[in-house]
């Protein structure tokens, strides 16, 4: 699992490296360089997330997910949030009719997205935490208006009966972070609201849509 750990570290590095760059108090480089560097980071975090999905596929084929391992699904969650951010960024690029700064913007993320999500769902059959996280990832996508890949929607429809029950929320007590939200790091105000339990609670009241039902479209 050393290489899974490695992938997680590289994903974290480029994901938060990008945040760090965007938040820097003084922009001591010109706009062109800044954008180029950001594009490279964006590409690299996606690369590592896709690579991680390959590793997950190997693991699934060799050992299966009968015994859920936290290390395995933690990496999948990180990849999934990176994919969500990437899909959202691509939608924004399209809206602005911008030339995508990212090299292979048409790179197909669907298989990797599917593999990572399958890992979460499979681990969630036996363990509450990945089950809750899968729910959180799905609702994050719905709330941010990200179109999840078709195979994932089908997968969610398949497990709609067993994937999540509203009463599951009572069995879950977790402050797992949501890495697509700005407040997910640090301990400033608003951090508690971006944690898993409170997010699921508030989204439960908003009736954002059930898995399998195409949301708001």
């Amino acid at each position: 699992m050393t290489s899974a750990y490695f992938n997680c570290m590289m994903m974290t590095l480029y994901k938060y490296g990008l945040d760090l760059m965007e938040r820097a108090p003084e922009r001591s480089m010109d706009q062109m360089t800044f954008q180029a560097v950001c594009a490279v980071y964006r590409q690299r975090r996606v690369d590592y997330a896709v690579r991680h999905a390959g590793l997950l596929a190997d693991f699934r084929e060799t050992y299966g997910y009968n015994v859920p391992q936290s290390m395995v699904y933690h990496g999948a969650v990180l990849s999934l949030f990176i994919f969500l951010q990437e899909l959202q960024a691509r939608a924004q690029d399209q809206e602005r009719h911008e030339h995508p700064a990212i090299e292979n913007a048409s790179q197909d993320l669907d298989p990797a997205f599917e593999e990572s999500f399958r890992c979460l769902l499979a681990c969630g059959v036996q363990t509450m935490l990945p089950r809750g996280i899968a729910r959180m990832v799905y609702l994050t996508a719905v709330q941010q208006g990200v179109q999840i890949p078709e195979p994932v929607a089908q997968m969610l429809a398949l497990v709609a009966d067993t994937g999540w029950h509203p009463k599951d929320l009572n069995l879950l007590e977790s402050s797992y972070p949501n890495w697509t939200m700005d407040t997910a790091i640090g301990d400033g105000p608003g951090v508690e609201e971006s944690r898993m339990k409170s997010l699921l609670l508030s989204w439960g009241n908003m009736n954002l849509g059930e898995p399998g039902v195409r949301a708001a479209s």
Partner: protein
Amino acid sequence: MLEDRFSLEGILPDRPEIWSAYPYKQDPIVFHANMLLQERFKLVDLTWTLGSTLFRTENVQSCSASHTAVEMLAHSFLDWYSALPETLRGSRDMPAPLYELQYVCFVP
């Protein structure tokens, strides 16, 4: 660096072990557990540096300084990865995940 304080190789000498992934796989595999631990120590060290670079608010610097820091970290991670001994390289049926699996299952 952790390594400067004591020699990991002295405390954890590399001893190949015969290890089987019961109940998933019956065939025993040669496994270098101590080698894995040594590399994990180094990785933890790098992870600590990563955490203090990216998440300490008092360390927030200018753009180019952040860029340099990130690039340096990436280099040290890649150096670590390329220096990994052959037995710890990823493969489809590597025993390392199952080593960790045993840990997760039996030391909850």
